[in-house]
């Protein structure tokens, strides 16, 4: 359970930050909803990156 | 569990602002400022206590222990070195003493041999001297005895001749005759 919570929190955090950034981007430049979509996807990518890193599959730069 | 969790989350996000005390507690926004303020005050207090008092104290104790251990180890090493050095010094001294003893022994042996040689020689010399003296004294004794014998023989001869002939022979003739007979026997 601990591991699952850890990995899911990584993914959720990535997606959430992406979504917030996209929303802010849209608010500032009134590009809604494209900013949100793009950043949401990027956030998903970042979340996957986080998960992969914290699962120890990909080399983690910050641990070296 | 998951159900109540999700449900509570939903109600919390929907109603937090409207209904203060309900919903899922960790997501009630109106409690956030109180918690942040509490956390800031307590955490800053903790940080100050930890960084100013607690850590220097514990760190100091640990450092002091480490230093004591290092000091003790260094001391033990020093003592060990010292005892090793003492051992080495003792061994070298022992070797030197042994060598000296051998030298002294050899010297003594030589000296003794020399002195006994000298003694023997002196003894032999004195014995030879005594022998020579004895031989000499024998020779003189014999010569004296011989001359006594000649006197006695001459006297006896003249007495015998006087008995036989009735008149004393001339001393010189008797002595010559005695000498001649002595030479013949001797």
């Amino acid at each position, binding site marked *: 359970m601990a591991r699952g*919570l850890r990995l899911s929190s990584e993914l959720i955090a990535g997606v959430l930050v992406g979504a917030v950034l996209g929303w802010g981007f849209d608010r500032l430049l009134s590009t809604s909803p494209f900013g949100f979509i793009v950043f949401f996807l990027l956030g998903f990518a970042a979340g996957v990156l986080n998960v992969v890193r914290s699962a120890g599959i990909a080399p983690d730069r*910050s641990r070296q | 569990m998951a159900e109540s969790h999700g449900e509570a989350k939903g109600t919390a996000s929907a109603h937090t602002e409207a209904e203060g005390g309900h919903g899922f507690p960790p997501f009630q926004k109106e409690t956030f*400022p*109180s918690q942040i*303020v509490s956390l800031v005050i307590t955490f800053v207090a903790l940080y100050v206590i930890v960084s100013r*008092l607690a850590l220097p104290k514990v760190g100091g104790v640990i450092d002091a222990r480490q230093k004591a251990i290092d000091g003790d180890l260094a001391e033990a090493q020093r003592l060990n070195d010292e005892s090793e050095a003492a051992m080495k010094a003792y061994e070298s001294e022992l070797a030197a003493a042994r060598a000296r003893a051998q030298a002294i022994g050899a010297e003594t042996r030589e000296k003794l041999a020399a002195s006994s040689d000298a003694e023997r020689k002196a003894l032999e010399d004195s014995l030879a001297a005594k022998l020579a003296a004895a031989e000499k004294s024998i020779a003189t004794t014999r010569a004296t005895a011989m001359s006594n014998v000649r006197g006695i023989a001459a006297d006896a001869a003249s007495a015998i001749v006087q008995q036989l002939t009735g008149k004393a022979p001339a001393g010189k003739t008797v002595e010559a005759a005695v000498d001649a007979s002595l030479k013949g026997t001797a």
Partner: protein
Amino acid sequence: MIDPIHQFHLNKIFTIGHIGNQEIAFTNSTAYMLLAVVLIAGMMLAAGRALVPGRFQSVVELSYEFVANTLRTSAGSHGMTFFPLVFSLFMFIFVSNIVGIIPYTFTVSSHIIVTFSLALLVFLTVIIYGFYKNGLKFFKLFVPSGIPAVILPLVVVIEIISFFSRPISHSVRLFANMLAGHVTLKVFASFVTMLGALGFVGKVGALLPLGLTVALTGLELMVAFLQAYVFTILTCIYLNDAIHPGH
């Protein structure tokens, strides 16, 4: 059914003051935060100074050495600048987690705002110290080496999002673990009382959830330590980024 969420309620004890329109209350959460601080400070300051430590002093020194080693291995000797911060974080989370396992207590770290504030503290420390120490070189953190120039902008954006997601995952992990653990414990414990009320058969049946509750309490003790440790080691890793961003 006993409400498993009830344990997370904040109860106002008295009002400290107001910031703007917002009432700042002294709650049970505040009390448990204070309790954690008092416990840590009392433990550390009461520990002896003996050359050969007793049990109590050993515990204090063990925690000191543990955090110091964690920080040194993750962030290098330079990271020791942050030793008081990391030690405070670890002890605060660890003690409040452990206190929270005791029945009828309140778990400070089961509130997202608390864990998020702590994570934000680490995050801001990393950013401020990173720029203070490295200047613009701190941006190297977002530019991994060995990436083709074509997809580099995309990677940089992903890295930035990943970087900003840190305080969230950092705090959600601790919060979710504590919350889920305490809810599970409460649910199983309530099964015991519910089954226990159903006569003899129920009492026998209650043994199973009782055993599970005991086992879960053991697990939660481990989780309390583990999550404090995970929070600490991630703090160390993030601080390492602030100190050596080029890696």
